[in-house]
């Protein structure tokens, strides 16, 4: 039976990505293994260390840059995270300097918002 072990986002800078995903969003560090000039850097949701790992992958491949630029231009998120209260969460993040690209917006059964992770991606938050 397969399960979702990893979900990856391409990041410009792994240090800055760790700051955003761990220190601002609240994910917890799972693995930080040196691999040449980069690291195998994964995080898990708080309180769920055996859950799906978010892999912060260096955005080095030449195809990544134009691909991400086109998505960001149109406001399309790289991935999505569920939170308890998206309005409160976006307000908290904005207070800590995170750029909000789409404010919390009701869309059918969920309310969603889009924020900039500051390392090349837009991230959707929803509740």
């Amino acid at each position, binding site marked *: 039976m397969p399960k979702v072990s990893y979900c990856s986002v391409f990041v410009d800078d792994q240090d800055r990505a760790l700051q955003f995903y761990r220190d601002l969003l609240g994910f917890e560090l799972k693995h930080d293994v040196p691999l040449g000039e980069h690291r195998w850097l994964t995080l898990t949701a708080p309180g769920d260390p055996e859950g799906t790992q978010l892999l912060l992958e260096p955005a080095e491949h030449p195809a990544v840059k134009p691909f991400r630029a086109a998505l960001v231009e*149109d406001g399309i998120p790289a991935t999505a995270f569920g939170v308890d209260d998206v309005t409160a969460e976006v307000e908290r993040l904005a207070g800590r300097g995170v750029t909000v690209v*789409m404010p919390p*917006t009701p869309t059918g059964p969920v309310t969603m918002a889009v924020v900039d992770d500051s390392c090349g991606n837009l991230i959707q938050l929803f509740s």
Partner: protein
Amino acid sequence: MGDVYRALADPTRRALLDALTATDGQTLFALCAALLERGLSPTRQAVSQHLTVLEEAGLVRVRREGRYKFHDLDTRPLREIARRWPVPEE
């Protein structure tokens, strides 16, 4: 300048103008979500093409802010309609 009448003739384009009236300055992604909320579900590519028609008619302006592209409403081209067929006061 494209044809403002042709731009207004399509219900999806009118819904896009409604969505921008409610919230100005939206990305393509946000506008697709706004259409879903209004019970429409055109493809992202179709929405993009509709926005181009609205932009050509001068009803939507595209604003680039850093790496993002936002769409703003500009209803000034609609004045031509009231000038051509003045609406009497009640």
